[in-house]
């Protein structure tokens, strides 16, 4: 078990994702990296940046970053902590969260929409990681 949006959690997530054959099959042609940004609010006192690099069905990196100039990812998805919790526990669909502006995606949405199955499996994996949520 690990606290969400910590390096320990990222390590568990990367391991789980790379074991998810449904995800790796769905993402076998995917090339793209992300900053998942957890905004200040609630228990989050400082914005947190989770870098995730996905390449042809492999999660090459899942890393908490303090210096945002370290990477220039293709996509940035940002949301308040509570929204990340709802998405990660499958109470809220990530696409719905974008449509209702509860989260914000920067990057080519049409590309994301072509990998709906992979995105769904990524969320499924997130939901299975043993996670402690801050209050």
């Amino acid at each position: 078990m690990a606290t969400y949006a910590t390096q320990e959690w990222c390590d568990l997530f990367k391991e789980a994702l790379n074991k998810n054959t449904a995800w790796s099959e769905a993402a076998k042609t995917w090339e793209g990296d992300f900053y998942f940004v957890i905004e200040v609010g609630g228990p989050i006192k400082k914005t947190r940046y989770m870098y995730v690099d996905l390449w042809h069905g492999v999660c090459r990196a899942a890393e908490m970053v303090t210096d945002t100039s370290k990477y220039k990812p293709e996509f940035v998805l940002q949301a308040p902590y509570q929204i990340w919790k709802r998405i990660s526990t499958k109470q809220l669909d990530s696409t719905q969260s974008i449509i209702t502006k509860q989260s914000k995606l920067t990057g080519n949405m049409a590309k994301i929409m072509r990998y709906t199955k992979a995105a769904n499996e990524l969320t499924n994996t997130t939901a299975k990681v043993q996670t402690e949520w801050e209050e």
Partner: protein
Amino acid sequence: MWNFSSPLISYGDNALEYLLQIRGKKAFIVTDKNIVKLGLLKLVTDQLDAAGKKWEVFDEVEPEPSLITIKKGGQAVAKSQPDWVIGVGGGSVMDAAKAIILLLARPDLEPDALSTSETYNFRDKARLMAIPTTSGTGSEATWAIVLTDTVLGRKLGLGTPECMPDVAILDPVMVMGMPPLITADTGMDVLCHAIEGYTSAWGTTITDGPGLIATRRVFQYLVRAYKDGSDLEARREMMYAATLGGMSFGNSMAGLGHSLGHALGALFHVPHGRTVGMFLPYTMEYLINGSKETTTKYAEMARFCLGASGDDKACAKALIAAVRKLAKTLAQPLSVKDCGIDKAKYDQAIPELVDRALNETMTITVTRIPESGDLSKMFTYAYQGKPIDF
């Protein structure tokens, strides 16, 4: 939190006269050459003339509008600087109008980079109106935009809630001339929208109502409109059903019939309504074989729309039978084979069909989500016309 959006709908006989009361000085009309030829554009411009409004026409929209056409439209609307962008036509035209008005606000925008996360604020410049001439895609009541990347040979499902039209005008005079085949194709699209919107995993009480009523109206009026295009009541009710179908699925999500239909349409160029309507009963069978929740919803629909009786499964099956019977009456294909698609080419295409269907959002917004194996079997069974038994 979820949202429900809808245009202001001006509907009924003489609804085009709503144009007499719009504010602003100039309209930019997006349409296609067929609408011009049929004289339907003139019905709109006559009203604008009577209101003393200037207007310009961009009539270059093709079926399945391309990114290239949208960019041309963007250049034309930038020169025009209108107060209204009005889409007059079928779904392709209305989707094109939604994309073009975004370019009015953001001339730098690449259409395929359109994002629901961005705010475009085109209403600082102009308002958006949709006047459908088919019944129909329901595009007048959705914010979805379907474009085609002709360079990569790919359909793009785009959209932003800002692109919900401000006004939709439903005047039956605009659909009276639809030939029987288009009446049938677009009518089956309405049925698919309505049933899938009603049973979407993203559906709620608020989106259920339009889907339920639209379904009932289709069963009551589509055959009448098909057999006699001059039947004003049938044309009017089908027009309303199309918009209600759009409101239902547009505020929830379409379903598996659309996932499979999009895939087939993209590869084999079969008209949209024909493909989704053809796959609809197969996907309904798949859902009742594995989802109690959807079986119950189909049963509710069957009882309300058809007067069916019996337990949930029996009523759900009655609904599926009614869909097939309607398709047969309308001379719509009941199988992929009926679409005239060569079996060898189809079998070879199944892996790609499955891949496309798997990556449609609609594939995961149903209550029984198929994996690739099930999708492959569904495509295979649908070729033969074999009911889904798994």
